[in-house]
């Protein structure tokens, strides 16, 4: 189980009138994920959802709060504990894939887990076994994201974080990749948190959805999935 309570002051992005009147806003979220749960975070741009997931990853630091995984503290502002990403059991998938350009698909996965057979297994699971030796520049967007997924999971982390994983892909590809994410999450039973601005994706993939608006959690709902 992952419990967290965070508060962080954020600058409002963009140049709207709102920004001039209130240049910053406060992200305040309190939540817990059960093991194996697939939670979606929905919200418009600038609602703080990316910051939330980056705080969980350890890439950004909340002002106040705590993050605990099964009683193991990743972050606690009162105890001044702040584990860097390296020491958190996470795997992260970025919107822009973030693959290592100089390594092949297999090389990227090996970077996470140097066990070769296991790495090949993961590549196979995402359907890219025959592209193992291809470099990222030789892969399509969808293929790159599959490699990113394999790479994120190869270390068998406790928590999978997905920051708008499908937003950079074409319409047709989104459905396929969404299916893949769901099937992998189901079969590994990994706890997953996905940030998106698409209600459809949430509806299709997640167990629970929480909605953020201007940094505040405004709703928490279960989803009915097929």
């Amino acid at each position, binding site marked *: 189980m992952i419990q967290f309570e965070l508060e962080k002051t954020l600058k409002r992005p963009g140049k709207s009138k709102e920004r001039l009147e209130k240049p910053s806003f406060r992200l305040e979220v309190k939540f817990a994920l059960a093991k194996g749960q697939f939670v979606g975070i929905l919200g418009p741009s600038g609602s703080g959802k990316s910051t939330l997931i980056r705080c969980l990853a350890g890439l950004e630091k909340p002002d106040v709060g705590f993050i605990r995984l099964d009683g193991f503290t990743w972050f606690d502002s009162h105890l001044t504990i702040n584990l860097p990403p*390296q020491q*958190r059991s996470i795997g992260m998938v970025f919107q822009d894939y973030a693959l*290592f350009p100089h390594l092949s698909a297999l090389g990227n996965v090996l970077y996470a887990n140097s066990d070769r057979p296991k790495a090949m297994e993961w590549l196979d699971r995402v359907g890219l076994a025959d592209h193992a030796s291809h470099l990222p520049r030789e892969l399509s967007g969808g293929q790159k994201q599959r490699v990113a997924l394999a790479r994120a999971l190869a270390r068998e982390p406790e928590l999978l974080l997905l920051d708008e994983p499908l937003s950079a892909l074409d319409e047709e590809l989104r459905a396929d990749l969404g299916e893949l994410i769901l099937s992998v999450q189901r079969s590994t039973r990994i706890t997953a948190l996905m940030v998106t601005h698409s209600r459809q994706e949430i509806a299709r993939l997640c167990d629970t959805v929480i909605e953020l608006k201007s940094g505040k959690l405004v709703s928490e709902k279960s989803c009915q999935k097929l």
Partner: protein
Amino acid sequence: MTIDLLPFAVSLQLGLWVTVILAVCMFPFAWIFARSTKAWVPWVESLFSLSLVLPPTVLGFYLLLFFSPLSPLGQFLDNTFGLRLVFTFPGLVLASCIAGMPFMITALRNGIMAIPEHVLEASWTLGKGRLETIWHVVLPNMRPAILAGVITTFAHTLGEFGVVLMIGGSLPGISKVVSIAIFERVEAQDFASAHVYAGILLLTSYVGVFLLNRIQRTQRLRDARRDSV
């Protein structure tokens, strides 16, 4: 005609030492300048570019005063370590490093800045520390930048004249580099020898820089075919 090959040996050694030392020592600074958002960064960064602004002879003159065995620092170095930094080859290497810093640092810094943030973050989320990330992800992806730094620094050091003259004393086999040898032959009105020195220098530098540029172009073409990763 008086042609002596010793200046070429000195110039080459100087170029190699300076390039290697700067490539290694300037990397941490380039990293900070590329990635830190602290307020003092632009101030310190500008300090590193100062040697570009001063005329080389002036820079050499101040270095001479600073490290002179008559100065407090010079005396300390002499008494404690037996180290002389004027009119010696190590002193020349140091002075040339100071003169060549901006070239290496700019190239490295630009190379680091060209690496997308998410790529570094991905490495961290996969359990790799900062140093591991620099070694396994950053360096392999900034080869063209490193080459650019090496080329410009090496070329600049070979052509360095003002600083070397002041702090080196033009001692044969120690600090008499090709650029000084050419100057001296011109002063002696011995243009024939000067032409030969200059010719050899130009030819070898041209070939060296050409080869390095070729390598860099091949790298760049490969990188250009990359999608946004």
